[in-house]
Protein backbone atom coordinates (compact mmCIF):
# COMPACT_ATOMS: atom_id res chain seq x y z
CA UNK A 1 0.00 0.00 0.00
CA UNK A 2 1.28 3.45 -0.85
CA UNK A 3 0.38 6.33 1.40
CA UNK A 4 -0.79 9.47 -0.29
CA UNK A 5 1.68 12.34 0.15
CA UNK A 6 -0.52 14.22 2.63
CA UNK A 7 -0.82 11.19 4.92
CA UNK A 8 2.89 10.46 4.59
CA UNK A 9 3.62 14.03 5.60
CA UNK A 10 1.43 13.74 8.72
CA UNK A 11 2.97 10.39 9.62
CA UNK A 12 6.49 11.75 9.15
CA UNK A 13 5.80 14.69 11.43
CA UNK A 14 4.39 12.40 14.11
CA UNK A 15 7.25 9.88 13.93
CA UNK A 16 10.06 12.43 13.67
CA UNK A 17 8.50 14.70 16.28
CA UNK A 18 7.97 11.73 18.57
CA UNK A 19 11.60 10.67 18.21
CA UNK A 20 12.78 14.20 18.95
CA UNK A 21 10.57 14.44 22.01
CA UNK A 22 11.80 11.05 23.21
CA UNK A 23 15.40 12.17 22.82
CA UNK A 24 14.75 15.35 24.75
CA UNK A 25 12.77 13.48 27.40
CA UNK A 26 15.59 10.99 28.00
CA UNK A 27 18.23 13.68 28.23
CA UNK A 28 16.10 15.86 30.51
CA UNK A 29 15.37 12.79 32.64
CA UNK A 30 19.10 12.23 33.18
CA UNK A 31 19.57 15.76 34.49
CA UNK A 32 16.39 15.82 36.57
CA UNK A 33 17.23 12.40 38.05
CA UNK A 34 20.67 13.53 39.17
CA UNK A 35 19.62 16.95 40.43
CA UNK A 36 16.48 15.78 42.23
CA UNK A 37 18.48 13.21 44.18
CA UNK A 38 21.58 15.32 44.59
CA UNK A 39 20.45 18.86 45.33
CA UNK A 40 18.84 17.99 48.71
CA UNK A 41 22.24 16.70 49.88
CA UNK A 42 24.00 19.95 49.07
CA UNK A 43 24.87 22.49 51.71
CA UNK A 44 27.83 24.59 52.58
CA UNK A 45 29.61 21.98 54.67
CA UNK A 46 29.25 19.40 51.87
CA UNK A 47 31.25 21.73 49.65
CA UNK A 48 33.69 23.03 52.24
CA UNK A 49 34.47 19.96 54.38
CA UNK A 50 36.98 17.23 53.76
CA UNK A 51 35.67 13.71 53.28
CA UNK A 52 35.96 11.23 56.12
CA UNK A 53 36.05 7.42 55.86
CA UNK A 54 36.78 7.52 52.11
CA UNK A 55 33.86 9.85 51.43
CA UNK A 56 31.19 8.05 53.43
CA UNK A 57 30.94 11.07 55.69
CA UNK A 58 31.97 14.69 55.35
CA UNK A 59 32.17 16.80 52.23
CA UNK A 60 33.94 16.92 48.91
CA UNK A 61 36.28 19.89 49.26
CA UNK A 62 39.51 18.21 48.02
CA UNK A 63 37.70 16.91 44.94
CA UNK A 64 36.50 20.44 44.15
CA UNK A 65 40.13 21.55 44.34
CA UNK A 66 41.15 18.64 42.11
CA UNK A 67 38.41 19.45 39.62
CA UNK A 68 39.63 23.05 39.48
CA UNK A 69 43.37 22.37 39.28
CA UNK A 70 43.50 19.58 36.70
CA UNK A 71 41.57 21.37 33.91
CA UNK A 72 43.39 24.66 34.59
CA UNK A 73 46.78 22.95 34.43
CA UNK A 74 45.76 21.00 31.31
CA UNK A 75 44.62 24.20 29.58
CA UNK A 76 47.79 26.00 30.61
CA UNK A 77 49.74 23.37 28.70
CA UNK A 78 47.36 22.93 25.76
CA UNK A 79 46.57 26.60 25.11
CA UNK A 80 49.99 27.73 23.82
CA UNK A 81 50.34 24.53 21.78
CA UNK A 82 46.85 24.80 20.33
CA UNK A 83 46.81 28.52 19.59
CA UNK A 84 50.36 28.30 18.24
CA UNK A 85 49.24 25.55 15.87
CA UNK A 86 46.22 27.57 14.78
CA UNK A 87 48.31 30.69 14.18
CA UNK A 88 50.84 28.72 12.17
CA UNK A 89 48.15 27.06 10.06
CA UNK A 90 46.27 30.28 9.34
CA UNK A 91 48.92 33.01 9.27
CA UNK A 92 52.24 31.42 8.46
CA UNK A 93 51.69 28.79 5.88
CA UNK A 94 49.71 27.83 2.83
CA UNK A 95 47.85 24.55 2.49
CA UNK A 96 50.28 21.81 1.52
CA UNK A 97 51.54 18.41 2.64
CA UNK A 98 52.67 19.78 6.03
CA UNK A 99 49.33 21.38 6.88
CA UNK A 100 47.53 18.29 5.65
CA UNK A 101 49.64 16.16 7.98
CA UNK A 102 48.94 18.50 10.88
CA UNK A 103 45.19 18.49 10.17
CA UNK A 104 45.21 14.71 9.85
CA UNK A 105 46.99 14.40 13.21
CA UNK A 106 44.52 16.77 14.85
CA UNK A 107 41.49 14.95 13.45
CA UNK A 108 42.82 11.56 14.48
CA UNK A 109 43.68 12.79 17.95
CA UNK A 110 40.12 14.09 18.33
CA UNK A 111 38.71 10.61 17.78
CA UNK A 112 40.92 8.73 20.22
CA UNK A 113 38.98 7.40 23.21
CA UNK A 114 39.91 8.50 26.68
CA UNK A 115 40.97 5.01 27.79
CA UNK A 116 43.78 5.14 25.21
CA UNK A 117 44.88 8.52 26.56
CA UNK A 118 44.75 6.97 30.01
CA UNK A 119 46.88 3.99 28.95
CA UNK A 120 49.38 6.27 27.27
CA UNK A 121 49.59 8.65 30.23
CA UNK A 122 50.01 5.71 32.58
CA UNK A 123 52.83 4.11 30.63
CA UNK A 124 54.58 7.32 29.57
CA UNK A 125 54.20 9.96 32.27
CA UNK A 126 53.45 7.80 35.31
CA UNK A 127 55.77 4.87 34.64
CA UNK A 128 58.51 5.70 32.14
CA UNK A 129 59.08 9.28 33.31
CA UNK A 130 58.63 8.20 36.96
CA UNK A 131 56.24 11.01 37.66
CA UNK A 132 53.80 8.75 39.49
CA UNK A 133 50.10 9.47 39.73
CA UNK A 134 50.02 13.22 40.08
CA UNK A 135 48.53 16.48 38.91
CA UNK A 136 51.25 16.95 36.31
CA UNK A 137 50.79 13.47 34.77
CA UNK A 138 47.04 14.01 34.67
CA UNK A 139 47.29 17.53 33.27
CA UNK A 140 49.76 16.51 30.54
CA UNK A 141 47.48 13.64 29.52
CA UNK A 142 44.36 15.81 29.52
CA UNK A 143 46.16 18.54 27.60
CA UNK A 144 46.77 16.12 24.71
CA UNK A 145 43.13 15.07 24.90
CA UNK A 146 41.78 18.63 24.53
CA UNK A 147 44.41 19.85 22.08
CA UNK A 148 42.26 19.18 18.97
CA UNK A 149 39.33 21.17 20.40
CA UNK A 150 41.57 24.13 21.14
CA UNK A 151 43.25 24.01 17.73
CA UNK A 152 39.95 23.86 15.85
CA UNK A 153 38.17 26.61 17.74
CA UNK A 154 41.24 28.87 17.65
CA UNK A 155 41.60 28.28 13.92
CA UNK A 156 37.96 29.21 13.30
CA UNK A 157 38.32 32.27 15.49
CA UNK A 158 41.48 33.46 13.73
CA UNK A 159 40.02 32.88 10.28
CA UNK A 160 37.05 35.01 11.28
CA UNK A 161 39.19 38.07 12.00
CA UNK A 162 38.64 40.36 8.98
CA UNK A 163 41.50 40.74 6.49
CA UNK A 164 41.37 44.50 6.88
CA UNK A 165 42.71 44.30 10.46
CA UNK A 166 45.84 42.63 9.18
CA UNK A 167 46.20 45.05 6.28
CA UNK A 168 45.98 48.04 8.60
CA UNK A 169 48.59 46.49 10.87
CA UNK A 170 50.99 45.78 8.01
CA UNK A 171 50.49 49.22 6.54
CA UNK A 172 51.57 50.68 9.87
CA UNK A 173 54.84 48.81 9.44
CA UNK A 174 54.17 45.93 11.83
CA UNK A 175 55.91 42.62 11.25
CA UNK A 176 53.96 39.42 10.84
CA UNK A 177 54.37 38.41 14.47
CA UNK A 178 53.41 41.89 15.68
CA UNK A 179 50.32 41.70 13.49
CA UNK A 180 49.39 38.31 14.93
CA UNK A 181 50.05 39.37 18.49
CA UNK A 182 48.50 42.85 18.41
CA UNK A 183 45.83 42.69 15.71
CA UNK A 184 44.74 39.10 15.13
CA UNK A 185 44.84 37.34 18.50
CA UNK A 186 43.04 40.04 20.53
CA UNK A 187 40.18 39.94 18.04
CA UNK A 188 40.11 36.14 18.01
CA UNK A 189 40.06 35.99 21.79
CA UNK A 190 36.33 35.29 22.31
CA UNK A 191 36.51 32.30 19.97
CA UNK A 192 39.64 31.00 21.65
CA UNK A 193 38.02 31.34 25.07
CA UNK A 194 35.05 29.36 23.81
CA UNK A 195 37.37 26.50 22.89
CA UNK A 196 38.97 26.74 26.31
CA UNK A 197 35.61 26.51 28.04
CA UNK A 198 34.58 23.50 25.97
CA UNK A 199 37.87 21.84 26.88
CA UNK A 200 37.39 22.61 30.56
CA UNK A 201 33.98 20.95 30.36
CA UNK A 202 35.51 17.85 28.82
CA UNK A 203 38.25 17.69 31.49
CA UNK A 204 35.75 18.07 34.32
CA UNK A 205 33.69 15.13 33.09
CA UNK A 206 36.61 12.83 32.26
CA UNK A 207 37.19 9.74 34.37
CA UNK A 208 39.14 6.98 32.61
CA UNK A 209 42.11 9.12 31.59
CA UNK A 210 42.22 10.81 35.01
CA UNK A 211 42.16 7.69 37.20
CA UNK A 212 45.08 6.19 35.29
CA UNK A 213 47.24 9.30 35.46
CA UNK A 214 46.28 11.57 38.36
CA UNK A 215 45.31 8.77 40.73
CA UNK A 216 42.52 9.20 43.23
CA UNK A 217 43.99 10.57 46.44
CA UNK A 218 41.49 12.33 48.68
CA UNK A 219 44.11 14.52 50.29
CA UNK A 220 44.56 18.18 49.39
CA UNK A 221 47.52 18.44 47.03
CA UNK A 222 50.58 20.46 48.04
CA UNK A 223 52.49 20.35 44.79
CA UNK A 224 52.15 19.38 41.14
CA UNK A 225 53.53 15.98 42.13
CA UNK A 226 50.67 15.09 44.43
CA UNK A 227 47.83 12.88 43.34
CA UNK A 228 44.33 14.39 43.23
CA UNK A 229 40.80 13.09 42.87
CA UNK A 230 38.35 14.99 40.70
CA UNK A 231 34.59 15.09 41.32
CA UNK A 232 33.94 12.73 38.41
CA UNK A 233 36.37 10.16 39.85
CA UNK A 234 35.00 10.67 43.35
CA UNK A 235 31.46 10.12 42.10
CA UNK A 236 32.54 6.99 40.25
CA UNK A 237 34.20 5.54 43.34
CA UNK A 238 31.39 6.47 45.74
CA UNK A 239 28.71 5.06 43.45
CA UNK A 240 30.56 1.96 42.28
CA UNK A 241 31.83 0.92 45.67
CA UNK A 242 28.54 1.71 47.38
CA UNK A 243 30.41 3.84 49.91
CA UNK A 244 27.59 6.36 50.19
CA UNK A 245 24.80 6.65 47.66
CA UNK A 246 23.71 9.94 49.23
CA UNK A 247 27.11 11.58 48.86
CA UNK A 248 27.43 10.08 45.39
CA UNK A 249 24.25 11.87 44.30
CA UNK A 250 25.44 15.08 45.95
CA UNK A 251 28.75 14.90 44.11
CA UNK A 252 26.97 14.11 40.83
CA UNK A 253 24.73 17.14 41.27
CA UNK A 254 27.69 19.49 41.78
CA UNK A 255 29.50 17.84 38.86
CA UNK A 256 26.58 18.10 36.44
CA UNK A 257 25.82 21.68 37.50
CA UNK A 258 29.43 22.75 36.96
CA UNK A 259 29.51 21.18 33.51
CA UNK A 260 26.18 22.70 32.52
CA UNK A 261 27.37 26.12 33.65
CA UNK A 262 30.73 25.84 31.88
CA UNK A 263 29.10 24.60 28.67
CA UNK A 264 26.31 27.18 28.78
CA UNK A 265 28.81 29.98 29.15
CA UNK A 266 30.81 28.68 26.21
CA UNK A 267 27.69 28.40 24.02
CA UNK A 268 26.57 31.84 25.01
CA UNK A 269 30.00 33.20 24.12
CA UNK A 270 30.10 31.33 20.85
CA UNK A 271 26.72 32.74 19.83
CA UNK A 272 27.64 36.25 20.80
CA UNK A 273 30.83 35.79 18.87
CA UNK A 274 29.05 34.55 15.76
CA UNK A 275 26.45 37.29 16.07
CA UNK A 276 29.18 39.91 16.43
CA UNK A 277 30.96 38.49 13.41
CA UNK A 278 28.00 38.69 11.08
CA UNK A 279 27.09 42.18 12.30
Amino acid at each position, binding site marked *: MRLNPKAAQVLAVIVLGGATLLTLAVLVFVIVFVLSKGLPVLNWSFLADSPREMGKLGGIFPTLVGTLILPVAAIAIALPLGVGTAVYLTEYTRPGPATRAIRFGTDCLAGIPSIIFGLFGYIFFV*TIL*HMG*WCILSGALTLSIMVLPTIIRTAEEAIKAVPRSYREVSYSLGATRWETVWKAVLPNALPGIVTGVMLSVGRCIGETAAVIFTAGA*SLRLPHSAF*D*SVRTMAVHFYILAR*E*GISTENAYGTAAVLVLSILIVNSVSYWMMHRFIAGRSA
Partner: protein
Amino acid sequence: MKPILLSLLGVVVALGSGCGRGPSGQSITVAGSTAFQPFAEKLADQYMQSHPEATITVQGGGSSLGIQSALAGTAQVGMADLVTLPPEASGLTAMVAARDGIAVIVNPLNPLKDLSTGQIRDIFNGKIRNWKDAGGEDRPIRVVSRETGSGTRSSFEDIIGGISLLKESLVQDSNGTIRETVANDRDSIGYLSLGLLNDKVRAVKVDGGVCSDEAILAGHYKLVRPIYLLTQANASGVAADFVAYVLSSLGQDTIRRNGLLPAK
Protein backbone atom coordinates in the same frame (compact mmCIF):
# COMPACT_ATOMS: atom_id res chain seq x y z
CA MET B 1 60.23 17.18 13.98
CA LYS B 2 62.69 15.13 15.98
CA PRO B 3 64.37 18.00 17.84
CA ILE B 4 60.94 19.26 18.87
CA LEU B 5 59.98 15.91 20.25
CA LEU B 6 63.27 15.62 22.05
CA SER B 7 63.07 19.06 23.56
CA LEU B 8 59.49 18.41 24.66
CA LEU B 9 60.70 15.24 26.27
CA GLY B 10 63.54 17.12 27.89
CA VAL B 11 61.18 19.61 29.48
CA VAL B 12 58.96 16.86 30.78
CA VAL B 13 61.88 14.89 32.19
CA ALA B 14 63.27 18.00 33.84
CA LEU B 15 59.92 18.65 35.46
CA GLY B 16 59.66 14.99 36.41
CA SER B 17 63.01 14.87 38.12
CA GLY B 18 62.03 17.89 40.19
CA CYS B 19 59.75 15.54 42.03
CA GLY B 20 61.34 15.10 45.44
CA ARG B 21 59.62 11.86 46.26
CA GLY B 22 62.66 9.76 47.09
CA PRO B 23 62.17 6.39 48.78
CA SER B 24 63.41 7.70 52.12
CA GLY B 25 61.74 11.11 51.89
CA GLN B 26 58.98 12.60 53.97
CA SER B 27 56.34 11.76 51.42
CA ILE B 28 55.49 8.17 50.51
CA THR B 29 52.92 6.31 48.47
CA VAL B 30 51.21 3.15 49.67
CA ALA B 31 49.52 1.19 46.88
CA GLY B 32 47.91 -2.16 46.20
CA SER B 33 45.16 -4.32 47.68
CA THR B 34 41.77 -2.64 47.47
CA ALA B 35 40.65 -4.78 50.42
CA PHE B 36 43.22 -3.20 52.72
CA GLN B 37 43.01 0.28 51.19
CA PRO B 38 40.36 1.71 53.55
CA PHE B 39 42.33 0.48 56.55
CA ALA B 40 45.56 1.85 55.15
CA GLU B 41 43.85 5.23 54.68
CA LYS B 42 42.81 5.22 58.30
CA LEU B 43 46.22 4.10 59.53
CA ALA B 44 47.89 6.73 57.36
CA ASP B 45 45.64 9.45 58.80
CA GLN B 46 46.49 8.40 62.34
CA TYR B 47 50.18 8.18 61.53
CA MET B 48 50.21 11.64 59.99
CA GLN B 49 48.50 13.09 63.03
CA SER B 50 51.40 12.00 65.22
CA HIS B 51 53.99 12.67 62.47
CA PRO B 52 52.93 15.99 60.91
CA GLU B 53 56.09 16.13 58.78
CA ALA B 54 55.14 12.97 56.87
CA THR B 55 52.72 12.67 53.96
CA ILE B 56 51.31 9.29 53.03
CA THR B 57 49.26 8.86 49.86
CA VAL B 58 47.19 5.69 49.67
CA GLN B 59 46.22 4.24 46.28
CA GLY B 60 44.26 1.13 45.41
CA GLY B 61 45.03 -0.77 42.25
CA GLY B 62 45.08 -4.35 43.45
CA SER B 63 47.62 -6.70 44.97
CA SER B 64 49.66 -7.34 41.82
CA LEU B 65 50.01 -3.62 41.32
CA GLY B 66 51.05 -3.30 44.96
CA ILE B 67 53.89 -5.78 44.38
CA GLN B 68 54.89 -4.23 41.05
CA SER B 69 54.95 -0.68 42.32
CA ALA B 70 56.92 -1.65 45.40
CA LEU B 71 59.46 -3.35 43.10
CA ALA B 72 59.55 -0.40 40.70
CA GLY B 73 59.65 2.19 43.44
CA THR B 74 56.45 3.92 42.27
CA ALA B 75 55.16 3.11 45.73
CA GLN B 76 57.32 2.77 48.83
CA VAL B 77 54.93 0.36 50.50
CA GLY B 78 52.96 -2.27 48.56
CA MET B 79 49.86 -3.95 49.91
CA ALA B 80 49.00 -7.51 48.85
CA ASP B 81 46.28 -9.81 50.13
CA LEU B 82 47.40 -13.15 48.70
CA VAL B 83 47.59 -16.59 50.26
CA THR B 84 50.80 -17.21 48.33
CA LEU B 85 53.01 -14.35 47.19
CA PRO B 86 54.27 -14.61 43.60
CA PRO B 87 57.98 -15.43 43.03
CA GLU B 88 58.88 -11.88 41.95
CA ALA B 89 57.92 -10.65 45.43
CA SER B 90 60.83 -12.57 46.96
CA GLY B 91 63.09 -9.54 46.50
CA LEU B 92 60.87 -7.52 48.84
CA THR B 93 60.52 -7.58 52.59
CA ALA B 94 57.04 -8.89 53.36
CA MET B 95 55.30 -8.42 56.72
CA VAL B 96 51.88 -9.75 57.59
CA ALA B 97 49.97 -6.64 58.68
CA ALA B 98 46.59 -8.23 59.22
CA ARG B 99 44.43 -11.21 58.35
CA ASP B 100 41.14 -11.04 56.56
CA GLY B 101 38.27 -13.44 56.13
CA ILE B 102 36.61 -13.86 52.74
CA ALA B 103 32.83 -13.94 53.08
CA VAL B 104 30.74 -15.82 50.53
CA ILE B 105 27.74 -13.57 50.08
CA VAL B 106 24.20 -13.86 48.72
CA ASN B 107 21.28 -11.47 48.47
CA PRO B 108 19.39 -11.03 51.79
CA LEU B 109 16.22 -12.33 50.05
CA ASN B 110 17.92 -15.65 49.35
CA PRO B 111 16.89 -18.09 52.11
CA LEU B 112 19.99 -20.27 51.70
CA LYS B 113 22.15 -20.32 54.83
CA ASP B 114 24.87 -22.87 54.31
CA LEU B 115 27.19 -24.06 51.55
CA SER B 116 29.96 -26.65 51.52
CA THR B 117 33.34 -26.06 49.89
CA GLY B 118 32.32 -28.56 47.21
CA GLN B 119 29.08 -26.71 46.47
CA ILE B 120 30.89 -23.38 46.24
CA ARG B 121 33.38 -24.96 43.82
CA ASP B 122 30.57 -26.40 41.69
CA ILE B 123 28.69 -23.09 41.65
CA PHE B 124 31.72 -21.07 40.57
CA ASN B 125 32.64 -23.73 37.99
CA GLY B 126 29.12 -23.69 36.58
CA LYS B 127 28.28 -27.29 37.52
CA ILE B 128 25.48 -26.15 39.83
CA ARG B 129 23.39 -23.52 38.05
CA ASN B 130 20.20 -23.52 40.07
CA TRP B 131 19.86 -22.69 43.77
CA LYS B 132 17.70 -25.78 44.32
CA ASP B 133 20.69 -28.00 43.54
CA ALA B 134 22.50 -26.36 46.45
CA GLY B 135 19.55 -26.71 48.80
CA GLY B 136 17.81 -23.43 47.97
CA GLU B 137 14.90 -22.15 45.92
CA ASP B 138 14.21 -23.07 42.31
CA ARG B 139 15.91 -20.04 40.80
CA PRO B 140 18.93 -19.60 38.53
CA ILE B 141 22.29 -18.82 40.09
CA ARG B 142 24.21 -15.77 38.96
CA VAL B 143 27.91 -15.90 39.77
CA VAL B 144 29.78 -12.65 40.44
CA SER B 145 33.56 -12.80 40.67
CA ARG B 146 36.50 -10.44 41.00
CA GLU B 147 38.78 -9.66 38.05
CA THR B 148 41.90 -11.65 37.16
CA GLY B 149 44.76 -10.32 39.25
CA SER B 150 42.66 -9.54 42.29
CA GLY B 151 44.19 -10.82 45.53
CA THR B 152 40.79 -11.68 46.93
CA ARG B 153 40.03 -13.76 43.85
CA SER B 154 43.28 -15.71 43.83
CA SER B 155 43.06 -16.32 47.59
CA PHE B 156 39.44 -17.46 47.22
CA GLU B 157 40.33 -19.80 44.36
CA ASP B 158 43.42 -21.09 46.19
CA ILE B 159 41.48 -22.00 49.31
CA ILE B 160 38.39 -23.45 47.58
CA GLY B 161 40.64 -25.27 45.08
CA GLY B 162 39.94 -26.56 41.59
CA ILE B 163 38.08 -23.51 40.34
CA SER B 164 37.91 -22.74 36.63
CA LEU B 165 35.50 -19.86 36.65
CA LEU B 166 32.24 -20.18 34.74
CA LYS B 167 32.57 -18.02 31.65
CA GLU B 168 29.20 -16.34 32.03
CA SER B 169 30.11 -15.01 35.49
CA LEU B 170 29.79 -11.28 35.95
CA VAL B 171 33.12 -9.70 36.80
CA GLN B 172 33.46 -6.67 39.07
CA ASP B 173 36.71 -5.00 40.02
CA SER B 174 36.35 -4.24 43.72
CA ASN B 175 34.82 -5.49 46.95
CA GLY B 176 32.34 -2.61 46.91
CA THR B 177 31.06 -3.33 43.41
CA ILE B 178 30.70 -7.05 44.21
CA ARG B 179 28.64 -6.07 47.23
CA GLU B 180 26.47 -3.65 45.22
CA THR B 181 25.89 -6.18 42.45
CA VAL B 182 24.86 -8.93 44.86
CA ALA B 183 22.72 -6.47 46.83
CA ASN B 184 20.84 -5.53 43.64
CA ASP B 185 20.26 -9.04 42.28
CA ARG B 186 18.51 -11.65 44.41
CA ASP B 187 19.85 -14.62 42.42
CA SER B 188 23.51 -13.76 42.68
CA ILE B 189 26.43 -15.07 44.70
CA GLY B 190 29.79 -13.44 45.23
CA TYR B 191 32.64 -13.13 47.70
CA LEU B 192 34.32 -10.21 49.41
CA SER B 193 36.60 -9.17 52.21
CA LEU B 194 34.93 -9.76 55.59
CA GLY B 195 35.95 -6.24 56.60
CA LEU B 196 33.64 -4.79 53.94
CA LEU B 197 30.60 -6.94 54.68
CA ASN B 198 27.47 -4.94 55.49
CA ASP B 199 23.74 -5.58 55.84
CA LYS B 200 22.95 -5.07 52.14
CA VAL B 201 24.17 -8.63 51.59
CA ARG B 202 24.32 -11.80 53.71
CA ALA B 203 27.28 -14.09 54.32
CA VAL B 204 26.55 -17.83 54.19
CA LYS B 205 28.21 -20.43 56.41
CA VAL B 206 31.00 -22.33 54.71
CA ASP B 207 31.24 -26.02 55.75
CA GLY B 208 29.17 -25.06 58.80
CA GLY B 209 31.55 -22.29 59.86
CA VAL B 210 30.12 -18.80 60.42
CA CYS B 211 32.07 -16.02 58.78
CA SER B 212 33.00 -13.90 61.77
CA ASP B 213 36.09 -12.65 63.57
CA GLU B 214 35.48 -15.02 66.50
CA ALA B 215 35.11 -18.06 64.27
CA ILE B 216 38.26 -17.17 62.36
CA LEU B 217 40.28 -16.59 65.54
CA ALA B 218 39.02 -19.93 66.86
CA GLY B 219 39.98 -21.61 63.57
CA HIS B 220 36.40 -22.54 62.58
CA TYR B 221 36.25 -20.67 59.26
CA LYS B 222 38.54 -21.67 56.42
CA LEU B 223 38.42 -18.70 54.00
CA VAL B 224 41.17 -16.57 55.55
CA ARG B 225 44.11 -14.88 53.88
CA PRO B 226 46.98 -12.75 55.15
CA ILE B 227 47.50 -9.14 54.13
CA TYR B 228 51.12 -8.27 53.46
CA LEU B 229 52.91 -4.96 53.51
CA LEU B 230 55.86 -5.07 51.13
CA THR B 231 58.86 -2.78 51.14
CA GLN B 232 62.23 -2.86 49.46
CA ALA B 233 64.79 -4.63 51.61
CA ASN B 234 66.70 -1.45 52.50
CA ALA B 235 63.60 0.63 53.25
CA SER B 236 64.10 3.41 55.75
CA GLY B 237 62.49 6.69 56.74
CA VAL B 238 58.74 7.12 56.62
CA ALA B 239 58.13 3.86 54.72
CA ALA B 240 59.87 1.68 57.33
CA ASP B 241 58.44 3.73 60.17
CA PHE B 242 54.89 3.48 58.81
CA VAL B 243 55.15 -0.31 58.48
CA ALA B 244 56.44 -0.49 62.05
CA TYR B 245 53.51 1.68 63.12
CA VAL B 246 50.99 -0.64 61.46
CA LEU B 247 52.57 -3.63 63.23
CA SER B 248 52.68 -1.85 66.60
CA SER B 249 49.93 -2.44 69.13
CA LEU B 250 48.44 0.96 68.22
CA GLY B 251 48.16 0.09 64.56
CA GLN B 252 46.94 -3.43 65.23
CA ASP B 253 44.30 -2.00 67.52
CA THR B 254 43.00 0.27 64.75
CA ILE B 255 42.88 -2.70 62.42
CA ARG B 256 40.88 -4.72 64.93
CA ARG B 257 38.47 -1.90 65.75
CA ASN B 258 37.66 -1.37 62.07
CA GLY B 259 36.79 -4.96 61.34
CA LEU B 260 39.95 -6.76 60.23
CA LEU B 261 41.84 -9.39 62.17
CA PRO B 262 45.22 -8.53 63.68
CA ALA B 263 48.33 -10.19 62.30
CA LYS B 264 48.82 -12.56 65.22
